[in-house]
């Protein structure tokens, strides 16, 4: 696993001190180096074309103020990115005092970084004042991407070839390339940080990050190119006019992320009906879902499947609602195999009613099927739920190491006929880590 290669210390030590990330520190260091470089450049050569710098800096600040929460607890600042990237790629800006030709932009690499950094800091300030997280990691990774793009673009766009309006297509080509590289860099850094944060495999985290950031990345890149080219005739007014469409896109994304969060929250709450009804022990569904997701991550499931797994784990006992009387103690592990299967089928029926959660229903339906070795076996998610559910039925909310070890031992004994040995191994790893972090 590549995450383990990041730090060479013993696993327990690594997990007890996971807050002080190596990659996080590295990122902060790199970003602050950039800021210092930018500040030095501006101090040495003074600020060129201050009105343009002010306009773009303000744009970046607005964008940073209007950050966007994406699914999975991510944060993005698309408008800030459009502002910073288009500033890095600026060719000519039509100014009011020059009616017949657009002003060629003279811009040093360092100035782009300085303006971006100041804009971001100003935009982040209200978040800090309001008591929200400053989002330093996100800003650092954005700043690095912008610095990289500016480092190539600034020397290149100062050359005679690009000053000629005739070769706009060449400029567009270069911009597309640079923006793609910048996007890759940003995504790579976010993936790295995320892999460390939630304990996912690096390759899986990168793939997830790319899939999730692709639509927004494309919109940001295209918008940056539009901004650069339209500013050539419209001047700084363009920033204002283009803010409208960008806001609509942002609102659309916000609503999408919002409804997803509400959805999950609702399923989480409603999965609690089995607990209120006295069918299962309090907190069981949540504990199972949290542990199942951790195990799923450990075995390298991508985020999309993790979401299905989370829903399925939350609702895995919903079938018990159809039982006349609650099972004593709610522990399905004590039921006969036939009854377990019946509860699973009933639960799957309920979830199928929703029409959009067929994958989840399938996971719930297969949750009590035994593991019969490779070949014909239930889906991975079901195997995870089965093992985690049994574990929680035996351990409950307890944090005693002995109890946890005894339960794991019992699961291991049954790996030949009941539980997937790979899943049980991952469960042992996750459970061990949890106990260690509690000490």
């Amino acid at each position, binding site marked *: 696993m590549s995450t383990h290669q990041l730090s060479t210390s013993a696993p327990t030590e690594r997990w007890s001190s996971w807050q002080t990330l190596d990659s996080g520190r590295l990122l902060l260091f790199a970003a602050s180096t950039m800021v210092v470089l930018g500040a030095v450049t501006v101090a040495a050569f003074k600020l060129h074309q201050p009105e343009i710098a002010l306009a773009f800096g303000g744009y970046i600040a607005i964008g940073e103020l209007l950050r966007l929460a994406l699914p999975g607890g991510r944060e993005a600042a698309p408008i800030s990115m459009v502002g910073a990237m288009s500033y890095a790629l600026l060719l000519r800006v*039509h100014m009011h005092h020059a*009616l017949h030709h*657009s002003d060629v932009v003279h811009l040093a690499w360092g100035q782009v970084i300085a303006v971006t950094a100041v804009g971001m800091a100003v935009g982040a300030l209200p978040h800090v004042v309001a008591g929200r997280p400053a989002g330093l990691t996100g800003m650092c990774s954005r700043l690095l991407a912008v610095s990289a793009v500016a480092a190539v673009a600034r020397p290149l766009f100062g050359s005679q070839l690009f000053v000629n309006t005739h070769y*706009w*297509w060449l400029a*567009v080509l270069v911009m597309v390339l640079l923006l793609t590289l910048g996007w890759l860099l940003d995504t790579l850094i976010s993936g790295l940080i995320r892999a460390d944060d939630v304990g996912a495999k690096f390759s899986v985290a990168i793939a997830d990050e790319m899939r999730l950031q692709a*639509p*927004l990345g494309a*919109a940001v890149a*295209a*918008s940056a190119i*539009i901004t650069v*080219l*339209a500013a*050539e*005739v*419209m*001047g700084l*007014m*363009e920033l*204002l*006019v*283009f803010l*409208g*469409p*960008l*806001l*609509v*896109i942002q*609102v*659309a994304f916000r*609503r*999408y992320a919002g*409804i*997803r*969060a*509400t959805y999950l*929250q*609702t*399923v*989480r*709450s*409603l999965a*609690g*009906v089995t607990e*209120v*009804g*006295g069918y299962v022990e309090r907190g069981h569904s949540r504990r199972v879902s949290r542990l199942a997701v951790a195990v799923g991550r450990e075995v390298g499931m991508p985020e999309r499947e993790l979401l299905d797994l989370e829903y399925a784990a939350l609702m895995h006992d*919903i079938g018990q*609602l*159809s039982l*006349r*009387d609650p099972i004593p103690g709610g522990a399905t592990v004590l039921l006969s195999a036939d009854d377990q299967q019946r509860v699973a089928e009933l639960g799957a029926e*309920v979830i*199928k*009613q*929703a*029409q*959009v*959660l067929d994958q989840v229903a399938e996971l719930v339906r297969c949750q009590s099927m035994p593991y019969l070795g490779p070949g014909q076996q239930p889906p991975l998610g079901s195997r995870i739920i089965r093992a985690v559910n049994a574990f929680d039925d035996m351990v409950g909310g307890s944090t005693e190491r002995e109890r946890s070890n005894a339960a794991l031992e019992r699961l291991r004994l049954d790996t030949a006929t009941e539980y997937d040995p790979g899943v049980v191994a991952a469960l042992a790893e996750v459970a061990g880590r949890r106990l260690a972090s509690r000490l």
Partner: protein
Amino acid sequence: MVSRAAWVYIGLVVAAAAALVVKSPPGHVGAHYWVELVVLQLLFLICDSAPAPLASRQASWSPSSSATLAAVVLLGPFGAALVGAVSVLSVRRKQRSADRSLAGALAERLFNGAMYALSGFAAGVTFVRLQHRYPASHPFGPPPPHYFPYLVAPFLAAAVVHVLANQGLIWVILRLNRGSSALLPRSGIESSVPMLLASDLCFASLGLVIAALWTVTNWFAAVIVLVPLFVARWAMAQFAEQQQAYQSTMSALCQAVETKDFYTRGHSERVSRGSGMIARQIGMRQARVEAIKFAGMLHDVGKLGVPTQVLQKTGPLTEDEFAAIQLHPMRGLDIVREIGFLQEALAGITHHHERIDGKGYPMGLAGHEIPIFARVIAVADAFDSMTSTRSYREARSIGEAVLELRKGAETQFDPLIVGAFLTALEREGWRLAAPQAKPADLGVITAQDHDDPTAPLRVVDSL
């Protein structure tokens, strides 16, 4: 069916637009600027053919107006009309067309084309009138690049006119055609009007950016703006999809709760609908209507906390058992508390069994102390209970149930809410619970219904 007045109106609009297209001076727009015209028409068609579904199922949204408004700048009023008119040709996937006649489909197409042509023309005229610096030698065709900074204000005025003309033309047809679903233009008026208008206006301003880009990159301008447009569309479609998923998951889970009891099947769904009817009738805004529908859906979820034996008991209840039933609204609150609801919805669930005379539960609130959500849900709840079959009686007719509601106004229900419900009922009707055949195994049935105002729970007098 489409009303006669609506037909006449459609005829007038289409005739006006046709006159416009025929009268447009072909020498200018068609011959000199045909590349601009064709590319913008294509852009319009692409945007219009793939509209994003909005949250309310009937309406959808497309950013095609940005193409028309780019034409306003690049080609003038007649060009804008010609771009808007191609809406006639747009290909949409799956029209909701089970009951749609060929004439209806054709009429919708013609009307849409005419509507966009007219509003494009209106915007164009506004634009030309308002900008003074425009050289007289350039009545049509792209303005010289250095004029763009001065075009912003006239353009914004034109965008406002375009949005208003568009929505106005649609509004009239909705007015004329009330109560029929045969002809529903795409942008629904009923849901989130300010949001829709604002986003229309914001995307309309993209038109000026397209025009500016055109002077630098020609047709490539239309290609590159498609990227953000499609991303926005994707996000909106995702939102609608998630919302749909959310609603159906909710109702599936509520059904799971109802499986405990054969006779109350579909009750939550109908109470949700009824509460929504009342909320709209008393003029709640859309977000609150949505919230009250959710609250209505979940109002009885706390029944799960009541032991099945108590719910199914045939004889009179003991005090303890009655207390357990009275606790169900609080149990419901426990379950849904953490959902990111409006606080009002939570209050609605907690207090849906309070009575106006203060004799309800769980808190014995009276009159206007009872939250409005709870007063609304109480009426819908009781009405559905009375019109459904119970093990101890057949379903009552709507007329009988209405009488009972009237009787209960002032004591059990808020008379204003009852009045609003009856008005809404008259207009929209009520989908009755399907008459239930007695289940073969009489395992899970309710012998008494705590929601039924005509058969109060019988409690053993404990002296």
